């Protein structure tokens, strides 16, 4: 029965593993090797969080996302906030102004109606804050034991303003890399709530809608090259996607990356790298050098970008790779995460 001399590569595994949903290399492989061939598409564009499509002369951004978070409520947000903000942010990363959402709800038999009321209220409140309207929806119930209480799916559309064209292909050496604020908060908040870990201070998720911040940036110049919200897989995954998509190298100054002390110590304790931890209300922007200062100033003038900083730049060397300059002056590769990060042993 046990007949392999060496372990099978993950991609040859006969069954789905958690890592296939982790937003890293395994997730990308699942889409590239199974879904894209089946759907007849090979375009890289289909892999991005939202698609830009033309319809009746208008350029629309179109996006969908599903939410299966445990627990349903956590410090700083809930599955309802995530479902709205996640899709709103995917649209905003195309430069679109998010407008309409759909919301699909899958409930597990036995969930208390009070919980459903709370989730629905959170969806409504988040949509109002983000300035979008939920215009269509659907509800299904699955048998007890077949779900984690509540699953949500949202899809959304928004209008891309003329002159805005955000794609990794537009990134060129010399571009400046900006993040909008502290990283790692969402992932650590979820972990601390789910596993009942306390890290000294309470850490709240940064879950928020970024449409307003993007508008403020585009008001400075429509010529942003690319935006990403570093959710699953964290900053490292987003930067790697852009390095690969643009065929350029990215250099990050590690000291400039804003990691709040509680996140740093939680990560140190668990052996996680903050660069790989999920965020839900942050973006990373690749901006032409000549506009960088002005865009940075505009970001800092917005409440969602008050702590924006330049963390690095795009270079010609090592195309397709992200390299960090360490605080001490050494360098290291920042790789694409494979699947989920695993807390270490000691």
């Amino acid at each position, binding site marked *: 029965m*046990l*007949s*392999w*001399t*060496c*372990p*099978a*590569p*993950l*991609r*040859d*595994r006969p*069954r*789905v*593993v*958690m*890592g296939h949903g982790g937003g890293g*290399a*395994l997730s990308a492989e699942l889409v590239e090797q199974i879904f894209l061939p089946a759907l007849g598409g090979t375009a890289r564009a289909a892999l991005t969080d939202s698609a830009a499509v033309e319809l009746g002369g208008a350029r629309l951004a179109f996006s969908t996302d599903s939410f299966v978070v445990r627990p349903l409520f956590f410090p700083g947000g809930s599955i309802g906030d995530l479902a709205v903000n996640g899709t709103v942010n995917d649209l905003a990363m195309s430069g679109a102004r998010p407008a309409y959402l759909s919301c699909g709800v899958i409930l597990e038999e036995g969930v208390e109606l009070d919980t459903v009321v709370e989730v629905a209220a959170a969806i409504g409140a988040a949509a109002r804050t983000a300035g979008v309207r939920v215009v269509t929806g659907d509800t299904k119930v699955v048998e007890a034991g077949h779900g984690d209480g509540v699953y949500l799916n949202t899809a959304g559309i928004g209008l891309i303003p003329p002159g805005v064209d955000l794609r990794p292909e537009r990134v060129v050496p010399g571009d400046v890399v900006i993040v909008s604020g502290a990283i790692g908060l969402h992932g650590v908040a979820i972990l601390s709530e789910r*596993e009942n*870990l306390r890290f000294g201070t309470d850490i709240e998720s940064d879950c928020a809608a970024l449409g307003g911040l993007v508008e403020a940036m585009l008001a400075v110049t429509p010529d942003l090259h690319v935006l990403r919200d570093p959710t699953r897989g964290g900053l490292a995954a987003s930067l790697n996607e852009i390095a690969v998509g643009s065929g350029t190298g990215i250099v990050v100054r590690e*000291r400039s990356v804003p*990691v709040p*002390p509680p996140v*740093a*110590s939680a990560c*140190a304790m*668990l*052996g996680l790298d903050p660069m790989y931890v999920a965020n839900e209300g942050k973006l990373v922007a690749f901006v032409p050098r000549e506009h960088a200062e002005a865009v940075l100033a505009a970001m800092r003038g917005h409440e969602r970008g008050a702590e924006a900083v330049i963390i690095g730049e795009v270079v010609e060397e*090592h195309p397709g*790779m992200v*390299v960090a300059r*360490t*605080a*001490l*002056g*050494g*360098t*290291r*590769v920042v*790789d694409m995460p*494979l699947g989920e*990060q*695993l*807390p*270490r*042993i*000691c």
Partner: protein
Amino acid sequence: MKYVDEFQDPDLAARLLDDIRAAVTRPWALMEVCGGQTHTIIRHGIDQLLPDEVELIHGPGCPVCVTPLEVIDKALEIASRPGVIFCSFGDMLRVPGTGRDLFQVRGAGGDVRVVYSPLDALRIARENPDREVVFFGIGFETTAPPNAMTVYQARKHDIRNFSLLVSHVRVPPAIEAVMQSPDCRVQGFLAAGHVCSVMGTREYPALAERYRVPIVVTGFEPLDILEGVRRTVRQLERGEHSVVNAYPRAVRDEGNPAARAMLDDVFEVTDRAWRGIGVIADSGWRLSERYRAYDAEHRFQVGDIATREPAECRSGEVLQGLLKPHECEAFGTTCTPRTPLGATMVSSEGACAAYFLYRRLDLPARPTAAAVPGPSLEDSTVG
């Protein structure tokens, strides 16, 4: 950012590096014992910053890497049984056993759970009295006391559906084994600070004396490593070989007596196999007679397990500092974190993983993972 500033201060680092450069007059080979230290060294590029004369050799101190294949296979077997909840720290889940790993067991329906503390496993046992709950107790002197504590608690509270799959290892016998190897080039040791915070430093003077090597107790932050190197090099240059505690903020000479007492109560010293290295006398712990009922190996009768290591994996040599990861033929070609052949490519503290994750750019050119596919199912099937 206090956390970063305190232990990664570039100015302090530069001063330490200057000191090391000023002290060095000829080549020295130092071994950092612990995989956590290896990780820090590679992640922060410390080996790039040290003068050429100082070579850091990576040691055997990655608990995940040295856990024998046989024990991993026992874990896989136990975790596959119906009625079992198998609890483990996260980084054991991807370690390849013979043909599969714990993730695959979970994918196939096994109840494998990641816990953050062994006491969580005990709680799960309490909450599931009709299931058998097994905790994968691996690691060095750092993880052994809390794991011992779970068994102590289980006995005290008469929780009978809990057991421990034990594969604990001890560092001093490993240092001894490294020194006894005929190919050994190590001239000084950076001892693992966490281990000493539990065990103290009493076990080291005899080793330092017998092999005439300086042993410097060293922490895990970049500045700790540089200070450890500085103290070791200074001794070597002077022809000294004593035990020095360069990590006093965490380590007392006597260690942690309460933790040691717990170890003495629950465990007894035994010979242990180290993956890729072989059996080292007195290098491990097993449950002592009084607690044998909590030993998962006895409870689940997993004695007759046939294991098979991939022949091309040279992690044993990597773990003994005889080979640098990229000198292995399989590195970055058939062996990557995605297609690991050995545990050293999987563990967050494994040297092969550290080189692959952080150092690919600086290593002599080889085909990358993307260019060379991993072994196909067919290649890897034997009769």
